[in-house]
């Protein structure tokens, strides 16, 4: 049997490997190549060296969007994970109707980002009209609008992961702690949280990358207004790519490559840090 596996594994691996190469490796290599080019479409690129990267780093709106995204990500990672964990704790207690609540909390995650953005824009602007303002009044409004939107959307998803983690904790461990006289907070911090650390690793990773990659919601809710001050990295790249002539597409491409590498690095560092803790 093992022999057969060794013999035939290329047959099984090949389709997936081919799809991975076509759908991921090739576009990624092309993207990196295009970031060194000036082009209108992918098939008419001319090599221009590192000019695009120099332009990208000179662009102050890009730097601003990176900082805005970073701040946004820090706030949402904390908010989403704390709230999702809290909701998960509540919904693993023996309360009536937990399944209904779980479903309801999960539902926002099923709605597309553009639709959510427009719906929340209507809600926020409807509320703000009482003080004669809109979301674009200042970047603070836009920032918190985006935070509320993303939290509302993602808490349910993270909650499901936390619920799975909490349900995996052996009941006798908690019982033993209770018999030994551990208080509620001791049980939470000494048993429950360390036990769900794999869930924490996954959820932080997801919310971290989601925060940085946010595009649809940003486009639909604020579109970067006022004056590009709520523009996040992905939207900045998009605007660079399509906002000017073809000469500038390479700059957008260069920004995208910088962004991809930075995001991958942040993801890896986060996994190393949190996963290391989980093992202890």
């Amino acid at each position, binding site marked *: 049997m093992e022999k057969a596996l060794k013999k035939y594994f290329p047959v099984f691996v090949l389709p997936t490997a081919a799809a991975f190469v076509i759908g991921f490796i090739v576009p990624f290599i092309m993207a990196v190549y295009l970031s060194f080019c000036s082009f209108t479409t992918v098939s008419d690129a001319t090599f221009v060296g590192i000019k695009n990267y120099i332009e990208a780093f000179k662009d102050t709106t890009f730097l601003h969007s990176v900082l805005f995204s970073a701040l946004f990500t820090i706030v949402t990672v904390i908010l989403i994970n704390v709230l999702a964990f809290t909701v998960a704790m509540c919904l693993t207690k023996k309360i009536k109707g937990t399944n209904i609540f779980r479903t309801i909390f999960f539902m926002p995650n099923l709605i597309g980002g553009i639709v959510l953005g427009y719906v929340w824009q209507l809600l926020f602007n409807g509320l703000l009209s009482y003080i004669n303002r809109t979301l674009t009044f200042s970047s603070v409004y836009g920032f918190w609008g985006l935070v509320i939107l993303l939290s509302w959307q993602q808490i349910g998803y993270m909650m499901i992961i936390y619920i799975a983690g909490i349900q995996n904790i052996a009941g006798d461990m908690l019982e033993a702690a209770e018999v030994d006289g551990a208080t509620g907070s001791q049980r939470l911090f000494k048993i429950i949280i360390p036990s769900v650390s794999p869930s924490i690793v996954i959820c932080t990773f997801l919310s971290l990358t989601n925060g940085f990659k946010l595009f649809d919601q940003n486009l639909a809710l604020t579109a970067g207004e006022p*004056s590009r001050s709520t523009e996040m990295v992905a939207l900045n790249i998009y605007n660079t790519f399509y906002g000017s002539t*073809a000469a500038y597409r390479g700059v957008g491409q260069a920004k995208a490559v910088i962004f991809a590498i930075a995001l991958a690095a942040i993801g890896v560092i986060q996994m190393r840090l949190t996963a290391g803790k989980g093992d202890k």
Partner: protein
Amino acid sequence: MRRSNKVIAVVSAAVMAAGLLAGCGSGDSAGGGSGDAAGGAAAGAGSGSVYYLNYKPEVDAQWQELAARYTEETGVPVTVVTAASGTYEQTLTSEIAKTEAPTLFQVENQSWLDNWGQYCYDLSGSFIAEHSTANTLSMEGVEVAAVPFAMESYGIIYNVDLLNEYCQLENAVISSAADIVDFDSLKAVADDIQARKDELGVEGAFTSAGLDGSSNWRFTTHLANVPIYWEYTKKGITTATSLDGTYVANYKNLIDLYFTDSTCDPALLSGKTGDDALAEFCDGMAVFYQNGTWAWTADNEMAEMNIAFLPLYTGVPEEKDSIGVCTGTGNFWCVNKNSTEEDIQATLDFLEWVISSEAGIETLSGAMAFNCPFDTFADVVLENPLFTSANEYEAAGKTAISWIGTESLPTENWKANLSSALIEYSQGTGDWSNVEKVFTEDFATEWENR
């Protein structure tokens, strides 16, 4: 046993591969509208086929119908794919790089040829170029790169019945719409309507000048044409890469009027959409609405309204009783020179049929409500009252404002900057100097960066 294992292995691997690759395939073809674009175009490869990447979603159904009719008559396959609203360049970027690229695509103006000129087939001598009555676009080495197929006009659309009703009011500042001949008279009327809005039963003189992405182009592209037009006219030039901003104050005149004599508080404008303004106008909540001939179609609410145009008066001395509405075109046909010879010929034949056959003329001027600048359309009577109104100004000897300003706008970035500056001005977080800066400094830098 071993053989059956082998068979199972091969079959399951094949199924996996098929599933995976099918997934890739369907993801690939999401160009813009119908996914079968490439397939359709490929079908008639032997004898030539047409693949039209259409710009205007509002006439997609009409184009599909016309294409089907042509295929029925001639057997030449015609595929029409329409890019979703506001994504034409994105769609064109990905479609034109494909093996089955569009044979026919559109550009908005001369500056689009910077990006897309390299794909333009020289149309000189073709039927559409020979019969064109408007200015075609040319570029270095290509005599006729693009041929316009629909003229459009924009200005201030007004509700004729409501304005007449206003004229009947006691102490109305005008006795008929003909008394509005310059910015001062327009402002007097608008201010008075705003002050007496309850008496007239409206919410404001102008519909909300929404600065949301679905509406801001009315001011960042169309209205922005006016100050640039006056500057160029004064200087006797038709294009430039920097502006003095001499007439930005005039732009402010009309913007201020839109903001103050409006259905809503200016601070809320950034959240107002194009649909909001349209609904306000159609519901009779406002008298004036800045938009163009495209706002009217035979089957929308406006078709039942009594409407006409006013020029975009901004307080320039030369405008008094002597200008018409802004007339030009942002719709040019280009034929892809990288297509096969058969496909290019098929496309030219298709276009000839579109502008000369009865079915084509009827669809373009009827269902699509286009004002087509070809001599084959000479006998066509247009249904759209806005064209009639625009023509009346010209017939009365008034100068139509050309689109030279819009055509020389540097980039999308520039429009976005202007929109941002207007938003900040409308909500009081920025002052007018930002708008001035966009017209002068940003205009030059964006041109430099191109």
